[in-house]
């Protein structure tokens, strides 16, 4: 009996020693801060929101990882004052807006997200578009492009988002900026925006548009001619 108790005691002592040692090691590693994925809100003004992870990954070259230190957002083309902003300059220089908007993908799925960002109209106004500017072409980090008539962006509250569901965009979702092209099919919602170019080329076609998708991308119409 005595032998048994001492065996149990020994086991207890060894386990305690292991736990203490593990605690010390864990204590050491606690000095380093591990980054967690941002927490997202799932409800806005009583309405349910989709999750950031509800999207299907269908970009042309997979998720892009943009180096924010070297990142520049160019506003170029038919503007009186071309601009070249850092990420911080963009998010700190303009009025912030948020809106709950649904993205409808041509593949048949949709997500409703609380988007937060600046108005494209404000961004364009800063650079003074020339009268010849009829079309705004968005360029992305992966080479993807899409375009809109300038009136669509100037007459509507179109957001260039840097947050979704209250958290900063993650690389898979288009960090640093995604266009919230309200009332347009998902392929017009360009991610990883690097350049906004104003042009007079009304015939310009973006990546999917060159492959037969509708250039307007209007949600109330088919995205391809039947």
């Amino acid at each position: 009996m005595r032998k048994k108790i001492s065996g149990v005691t020994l086991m207890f002592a060894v386990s305690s020693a292991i736990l203490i040692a593990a605690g010390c090691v864990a204590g050491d590693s606690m000095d380093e801060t591990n980054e967690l994925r941002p927490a997202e809100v799932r409800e806005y003004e009583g309405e349910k929101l989709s999750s950031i992870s509800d999207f299907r990954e269908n970009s042309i070259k997979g998720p892009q990882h943009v180096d924010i230190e070297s990142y520049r957002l160019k506003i170029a083309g038919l503007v009186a004052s071309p601009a070249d902003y850092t990420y911080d300059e963009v998010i700190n220089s303009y009025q912030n807006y948020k809106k709950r908007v649904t993205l409808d993908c041509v593949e048949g799925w949709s997500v409703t997200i609380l988007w937060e960002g600046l108005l494209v109209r404000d961004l364009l106004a800063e650079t003074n578009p020339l009268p010849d500017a009829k079309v705004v072409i968005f360029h992305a980090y992966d080479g993807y492009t899409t375009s809109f008539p300038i009136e669509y962006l100037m007459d509507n509250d179109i957001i260039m988002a840097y947050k979704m569901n209250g958290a900063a965009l993650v690389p898979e979702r288009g960090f640093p900026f995604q266009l919230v092209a309200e009332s347009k099919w998902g392929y017009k919602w360009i991610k990883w925006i690097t350049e906004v170019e104003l042009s007079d080329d009304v015939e310009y076609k973006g990546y999917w548009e060159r492959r037969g998708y509708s250039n307007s991308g209007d949600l109330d119409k088919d995205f391809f001619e039947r």
Partner: protein
Amino acid sequence: MKNVLKRHQARQAVVWLLVAVIVVYLITGFGMTEYRIVEPLTFGLLTKLLAFKIHTILWMPFLVLLILHIYQRTRTVG
């Protein structure tokens, strides 16, 4: 005897057509959602847009063939 043979041939034709439609349905479905894989695999022939176009019209022949197939089976069994 001739009629039985003809009916058998018709049944076979419906079955194989249905199989073909289902296979094309599956491939075009992948062509829409996994276009980055399907497009190069088909040497660029089955683009995402073409997959969409085919996929969205296939429901009709699929339904017709399926109904025909079920009808033929019930007649045979009955």
